């Protein structure tokens, strides 16, 4: 049984003319101890999906099962709050501006009473060492830390209470390579020790490739491809996934500007076309794409893709 199971999840904001369907029918599972990478265009609904999963926002419709149990109104129970954590995209959302680093890290342990008082200091030292920050930082407040330092404290804080699932929203985007490497190593070692699962939301494809077991690619509120990590990177199926992978900047000075810029614009989420939502930008678009909505279809080898050209070529 999967640790997390999401079924036909929808989440919209606003109403009438401002109705914005941010998540439009997502299905996914995350196993215990697994890392699911979640990538996709800015504004495609990744953060919204994450927030709904951790119970910060009510879904508009659909179901979420955690450990086999349907979550409805049970989300606020302290037990769920301990077991499911989120690291926010913007560190200021994870950290209390007025709270010093040591209090920030001790807070979840104190509130959720998961560690005896005399162990707290030891755990704090340990986690600070793992995120690569010395003890001098413990007395500082978030405003006295650099962007990347704030992000590391936010990650450390989420891992303190020993959760089963952590949604990490762009955890490494403001970190440089060497710190990023440390964070990945930290996440992995905690995963091995505690069998925690991660939903790793990121634009940073090389980090996703290093850390994720499977990758889900989102476009305009739907998952358009989900597959084991290496298959996504080596043999992407969906035309959007292909374009996304081609745009990664490389350090190759003689190859500047070889990236593909997708034609057309992403439709506004409040104005999604009939049929496939990628049709205006898709190089493989054909008649059927404007008439019918493609659905996520299994290719039978652990991969699922939502595109007529791939799943139903004629």
């Amino acid at each position: 049984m999967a640790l997390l199971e999401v079924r036909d999840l929808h989440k919209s904001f606003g109403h009438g003319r401002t109705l914005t369907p941010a998540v439009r029918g997502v299905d996914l599972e995350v196993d215990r101890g697994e890392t699911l990478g979640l990538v996709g265009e800015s504004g495609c609904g990744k953060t919204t999906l994450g927030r709904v999963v951790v119970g910060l926002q009510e879904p508009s419709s659909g179901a979420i099962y955690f450990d086999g149990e349907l979550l409805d109104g049970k989300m606020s129970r302290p037990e769920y709050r301990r077991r499911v954590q989120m690291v926010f995209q913007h560190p200021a959302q994870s950290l209390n501006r007025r709270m010093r680093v040591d209090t920030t890290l001790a807070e979840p342990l104190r509130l959720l009473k998961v560690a005896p008082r005399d162990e707290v200091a030891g755990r704090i030292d340990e986690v600070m060492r793992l995120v690569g920050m010395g003890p001098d930082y413990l007395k500082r407040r978030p405003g006295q830390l650099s962007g990347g330092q704030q992000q590391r404290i936010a990650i450390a804080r989420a891992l303190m209470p020993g959760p089963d699932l952590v949604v990490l929203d762009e955890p490494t985007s403001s970190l440089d390579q060497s710190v990023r490497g440390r964070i990945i190593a930290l996440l992995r070692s905690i995963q091995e020790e505690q069998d925690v699962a991660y939903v790793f939301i990121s634009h940073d494809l090389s980090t996703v490739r290093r850390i994720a077991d499977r990758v889900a690619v989102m476009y305009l509120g739907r998952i358009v491809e989900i597959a084991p990590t290496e298959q996504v990177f080596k043999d992407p199926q969906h035309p959007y996934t292909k374009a996304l992978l081609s745009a990664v900047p490389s350090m190759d000075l003689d190859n500047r500007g070889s990236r593909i810029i997708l034609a057309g614009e992403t439709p506004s989420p409040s104005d999604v076309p009939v049929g496939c939502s990628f049709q205006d930008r898709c190089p493989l678009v054909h008649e059927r794409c404007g008439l019918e909505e493609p659905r996520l279809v299994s290719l039978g080898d652990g991969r699922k893709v939502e595109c007529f050209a791939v799943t139903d070529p004629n």
Partner: protein
Amino acid sequence: MSLLEVSGLTVGVEHSPHALLRDVDFTVEAGQIMGLVGESGSGKTMSALAIMDLLPAGIERRAGTVRLDGRDLVAQDRETVDRNANDMTMIFQHPRSALNPTMRVGRQIGRALEINQDMGRAAARSRATEMLNHVGIPGADRVARAYPHQLSGGMCQRVMIAMALACRPRVLIADEPTTALDVTIQAQIFDLINDLVEETGCGVLFITHDLGAIAEMCDRVTVLYGGQVMETGDVRQVFTDSRHPYTQFLFDAVVREADPSVEEKDVNFALQGCRFGHRCPYAFDACAEFPLLREVDTGHLTSCFLHQKENALGSA
């Protein structure tokens, strides 16, 4: 004369002897993009804030000058500074906290235009929507009417970018401008910045920790560690002929998987000598002094005693 010239910039925490930036020197030329790269906590944002004269409370500038076309932009005596609204604009690292949470984002861009470009309200409004379109935000009309909390992280970042580009500054400071954006939109934003440079001949200080983005975007690059400029020069010089042990370490980090069993040392701001001294495999006696930047090749400078020693030996 350079468009923007930063020299001897030294910044520290009040009542503390340690400097967060020490003797920072670099220039930004008109029509060029200067990259500022360095690991987390190295002082990139601090440098930008010092240039903008926006240092946070508790942080003081102790020495150094910032000149735009030779004009002093930060002087001890604020009265004498003549800074124009469109001299410099900055795209902040955390756009959500830089945006006003209580004002619709279209209005925020419009306001910036009214102030910086002397536009009327209606013209500013339509220009704001147009700019939102340019930065690839679908449904710009809807977004213009939204408050920051109703937008995704990447949308807020693009709102900041739209606002900065609309102001057509002489110098644009972009602090990690694309961390919240996917690579396709990042590519689009890079193009917009390049267009702005081409059209207006402005100079850009492009802050990032992504060496790929530097390779793609920048003409020159400055490498910062512990608030000390380690190396500065042409991107090609620094990438293919790096002369500083730290720069080499930084490049290695790209291919090296960080080994968690190795204790990685934090920047030590208390060091009097070279800031990289406690991690540098080549450190020797001279490194207890502070190494100033020296030219190793035309336009290529490093702050490392190693070359000065080699040169001394070579010429002896």
